[in-house]
């Protein structure tokens, strides 16, 4: 059963690792952890007129996180950080059981829907990207540090 998680499309996407790397003078940078395992993603983006033009990521994570980061790099260009935030929310909702995949490319995560504890692995890159709106934000309110 959970072997389905590791079907060929996910393995291939993780291996492809689209957008891996850094940018020269990014307009926005965000880092975010998965507190479960210490996984971390760093996202750098070139932003023009409020929209992501290029997105690069440095991802230390499991196959699901890496596949998701790769797909993010493909999905992000042309969207605003706010739109990426909505994409993350829609993705979370779909994983939790509601509706349709929020983008055709993301349908390959269908087997993850039954494994709630891995949803955060898939969501990490998208949630991080939503933070591009407020550079430097890592999702933890300042007073709580």
């Amino acid at each position, binding site marked *: 059963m959970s072997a389905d998680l590791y079907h060929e499309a996910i393995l291939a996407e993780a291996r492809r690792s689209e957008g891996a790397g850094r940018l020269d003078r990014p307009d926005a940078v965000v880092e975010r952890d998965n507190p479960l395992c*210490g996984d971390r993603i760093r996202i750098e983006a070139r932003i023009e007129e409020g929209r992501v033009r290029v997105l690069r990521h440095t991802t230390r994570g499991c196959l699901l996180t890496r596949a998701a980061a790769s797909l993010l790099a493909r999905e992000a260009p042309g969207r605003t950080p706010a739109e990426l935030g909505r994409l993350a929310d829609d993705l979370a909702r779909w994983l939790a059981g509601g509706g349709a995949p929020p983008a055709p490319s993301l349908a390959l995560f269908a087997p993850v829907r039954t494994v709630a504890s891995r949803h955060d692995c898939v969501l990490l890159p998208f949630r991080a990207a939503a933070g591009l709106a407020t550079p430097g934000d890592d999702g933890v309110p300042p007073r*709580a*540090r």
Partner: protein
Amino acid sequence: MSLDVAAIRRDFPIFAAQPPPFHYLDSAATAQICRPAAEALLRFETEARANVKRGVYRLADAATRAFEEARARVARLLGGVDPREVVFTSGTTLGLNLAAHTLAPRLGPGRRVLVSVLEHHSNLVPWQLVCARTGAELVPIPATGDGRLDQAALEARLDRRTAVVAVTHASNVTGAVTDVARVAAATRAVGAVLVVDGAQRIPHGPVDVRALGCDLYAFSGHKMFGATGAGVLWGRGELLAELPPFLGGGEMIARVTFAASRFADPPHRFEAGTPPIGPVLALGAAAAWMTALDWEAVQAHERALTRRLLDGLAALPEVRVLGPADPEARIGVVAFTLEPHHPHDVCQLLDVRGVCTRGGHHCAQPLMAHFGVEASVRASLALYNDETDVDALLEGLAFVRSQLG
């Protein structure tokens, strides 16, 4: 529609287990557990146990999902709030201590915490301790003669120095129900935080915490037909996001190094360590069971019983009831004295008749002092009680007098 009490009672295993006569009138101390809660507890502990929030294998994943479903169920009981506003604790006491500790940075010399004299020690001692530590002033809000919160006196004491107001939603002695919405409006007007102890109110029906307008709301699973060991602190999301952590440990962090730690978002920031998973699942099951009830019928039933009890007590000249006489203004928690007898002696003899009541100060010594007594007898009703329970108590009091003269 009237309540089918026999059907309710069948949902509580205790009534089949305890030989009659068994008149359980101590639900304010701990209510009995309903079958769905007991089943959720037992199933998890014996057949499906795994730790939550960390494991990816099926058993662990299912435990995490069940845990978050319990959170969602509680959120529904509280008027459909965001589940991320539901913090699981070990009980009301921990929830109120969490409130006091995390609000401590807002306290200090010149700042005030207003606490009503109706409070259970759980909603007083934490504020005493935190005021002693920070130099803030602890200001009592007085009670009326019949043991309700004195709203006018509260409003007279509220000003910009006030950082926190802490009141009970229903007293565990007088049964008086506080008009929290009115307290909330006055509290908000001075920019203070309103902390409500819901331990006694929640077993008597769902509470729409957003409509009440409070900021933090604490209660215990074991008093609302769940298991012992778990409770809830609900908090307004905007406030929770600002509060620092209380307990340190696993599951509440984003990243830890010796130099510094970053903390997780609510609710996890406030849930350090392995939670009381079984008791939380029982709490969730109890919340779902409660949500499905016809509360108009339940409340009419409880009100009728309360009236029967108050009327019966009023007929006994030796009895003094501590609390409002009007069953509309209160829940069925009824404390009284039976002169000249000591409450413990009264309770002990009631037990001979199978009537379970509680004697003592009910962890509310300032309120006892307000009434000029040290202790009282308390009979507390829940939805599974019926007329025979009330009548057994009243007959039991006659028996007590026959024994003690």
